[in-house]
């Protein structure tokens, strides 16, 4: 009978968010504001850590009354939207920050991986960084010495161990950092989306390592947006929304529920106030919409055989800039299906506003995804606007809107089974008759 590794009891964490301050009104106000500023700043800084009243508008509960138990050897996923409190929960479990209320009981040594390569210093050599990073993660010097060769081999950086890390490629740095973490031997491991690094081969290696962690009787908690990973690695998952625990159960059930309830079903996301819209001083997002060929108004339900139009509407706030809009299409399990910009060579016709200085004003960029390309299921759109030619992002809204592709039978005909693949294009088939067999 496995014991309880983690037991959290009504754990809560409150943060204070910034409140908008009024602007200057008169010259006199401006002067008094400046003079009283130190006192005001002091109060503000203090208030970040001290709460006087229970009900304050400027306080938010990043995690609220979350209780769950994790048994030894369980691999549990934590899922939820951005800002649902997943990372805060990991920070509480790993003691990086203290809970505001509630308590957690932990049996065993905890290591947390919120970031790959914490404490890595570019000037130090690979060897020095391995020791530094290892001890930061709670290893002893002799443990690292014992595993040193293994770590270096895992990271595939044998030749560069005594080179300063700043001369490493990004991929090598990440591999080295993950290799150190992978050779920790904690009883409980907390991981926050660090697997989204490295090339495919290395990712596979990491996933394999994670899996063997769980099979080796260790407790693992994983935060991820990649639903395929969660289903693949975890036997159980919890779903957080606005800091509260919404669902706790078998990973596949929780993922299904999350996928079914998340995202907009109307195929349209609008930012009515410019100040709160994604973007910066160059531009602001107004809306992202999904349309279906021959259908009026945005929709989140599209026919597999019809064209899908993704529309990004935005404000250009700076005279004369070059802008480039692009989309990334992903499946709900996080697989990236495609990425396409309105650039030369990517658009079937040249976009009239590509590589042209733009006057200030509103723009509407439309991208047509042809029918008979995507498979059935749910897809998400990531909307990006960048300044050219530096490619600096104005906004990059992850999975901002979702839509479902349905096959009403035009393609399936009479087949009802599972249809593998992220795409389901119509391809050219031709069979030739070669005559009767001579054998």
């Amino acid at each position, binding site marked *: 009978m496995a014991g309880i590794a983690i037991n959290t009891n009504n754990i809560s964490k409150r943060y204070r968010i910034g409140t908008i301050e009024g602007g200057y009104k008169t010259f006199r106000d401006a002067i008094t504001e400046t003079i009283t500023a130190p006192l005001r700043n002091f109060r503000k*800084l203090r208030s*970040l850590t001290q709460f006087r009243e229970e009900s304050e508008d400027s306080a938010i509960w990043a995690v609220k009354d979350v209780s769950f138990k994790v048994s030894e050897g369980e691999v549990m996923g934590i899922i939820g939207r951005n800002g649902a409190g997943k990372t805060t929960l990991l920070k509480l479990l790993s003691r990086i920050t203290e809970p505001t209320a509630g308590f957690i009981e932990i049996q065993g040594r905890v290591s947390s991986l919120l970031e790959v390569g914490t404490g890595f210093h570019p000037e130090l050599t690979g060897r020095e960084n391995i020791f530094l990073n290892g*001890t930061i993660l709670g290893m002893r010097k002799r443990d690292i010495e014992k595993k040193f060769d293994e770590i270096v081999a895992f990271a595939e950086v044998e030749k560069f161990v005594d080179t300063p890390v700043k001369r490493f490629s990004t991929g090598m740095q990440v591999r080295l950092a993950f290799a150190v973490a992978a050779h920790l031997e904690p009883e409980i491991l907390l991981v926050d989306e660090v697997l989204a690094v490295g090339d495919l081969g290395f990712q596979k290696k990491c996933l394999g390592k994670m899996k063997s962690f769980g099979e080796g009787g260790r407790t693992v908690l994983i935060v991820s947006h990649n639903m395929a990973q969660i289903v693949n690695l975890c036997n159980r998952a919890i779903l957080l929304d606005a800091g509260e625990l919404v669902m706790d159960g078998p990973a596949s059930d929780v993922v299904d529920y999350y996928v079914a309830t998340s995202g907009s079903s109307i195929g349209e996301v609008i930012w009515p106030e410019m100040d709160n819209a994604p973007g910066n001083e160059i531009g602001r997002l107004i809306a992202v919409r999904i349309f279906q060929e021959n259908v009026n108004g945005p929709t989140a339900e599209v026919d597999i055989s019809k064209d899908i139009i993704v529309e990004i509407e935005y404000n250009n706030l700076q005279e004369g800039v070059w802008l480039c809009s692009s989309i990334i299409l992903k499946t709900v399990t996080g697989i990236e299906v495609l990425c396409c910009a309105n650039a030369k060579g990517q658009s079937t016709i040249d976009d009239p506003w590509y590589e042209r200085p733009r006057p200030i004003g509103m723009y509407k960029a439309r991208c047509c995804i042809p029918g008979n390309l995507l498979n059935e299921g749910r897809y998400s759109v990531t909307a990006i606007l960048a300044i050219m030619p530096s490619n600096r992002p104005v906004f990059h809204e992850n999975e901002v809107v979702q839509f479902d592709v349905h096959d009403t039978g035009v393609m399936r005909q009479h087949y009802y089974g599972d249809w593998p693949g992220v795409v389901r294009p119509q391809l050219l088939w031709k069979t030739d008759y070669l005559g009767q067999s001579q054998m």
Partner: protein
Amino acid sequence: MIIKPRKGWQLIDFHELWRYRDLLYFLVVKEIKLRYKQTILGGLWAIIQPFFMMIVFTLFFGNLADVPSDGVPYPIFNYSAMVAWMYFANATTISANSLIMDVSLVSKVYCPRMTIPLAPVLAFLLDFFVAFVILVAMMLWYSIYPGATIALLPVLVMLMVLTAAGIGLVLSALNANYRDIRYTVTFLIQFWMFASPVAYPTSMIPEEYHLIYAINPMAGVIEGLRSVLLGSSAFPTEMVLVSTASSATIFLIGAFYFRRTERYLADVI
């Protein structure tokens, strides 16, 4: 282990610090290795800084202003203080900025945060010893030989480290909350130097104020060092005792304040 909101004040968790001693070791090594990376003169900087300060002080205070130096040549009188002062100034400055320079160490991982400001305090000891070698050479040059009180040298060095550690803890924690500290530190250290007997001897201060003067722990350290190394005066036992008490108080306040700040450090930094 139970994680819950802590209330009130706590002292250092020695048990945990001990468990993470290897981390402290590697942080010290990192500090030392990084300091003179990609410099031409490397470790020589540990000597150049106090030595040139001593030359400037000798010119202006020793020669021009004719400040008394308790009967020993002004250069060695000043250098014996400068060695300790440079250690204190560098260690506290770096320590005060250590937390905000290494944010990810605070916000992305759990480790006893106290190791972060303590690492530079220990690392600068190496510079101290390097600069000390020059002091020994100067003593030979001037044919000044210490007496039996030299046995007290380790005590004085420890007092110096304790003071730097205490100030480092207070300032680094304050700095995490209020970034004003970053700008205050340099200013504070300069000011502090003139409140310590670096350029002038304690004997210039009226006798009855000596013990009040010794509330500045560096006064006790420097006066003590001069006495045991140069034999310029009898060992200032009372002053050193006052300084020790003051230094210990600073350290305790620093440790308490740091531990209190540590609870929400990751949220504010």
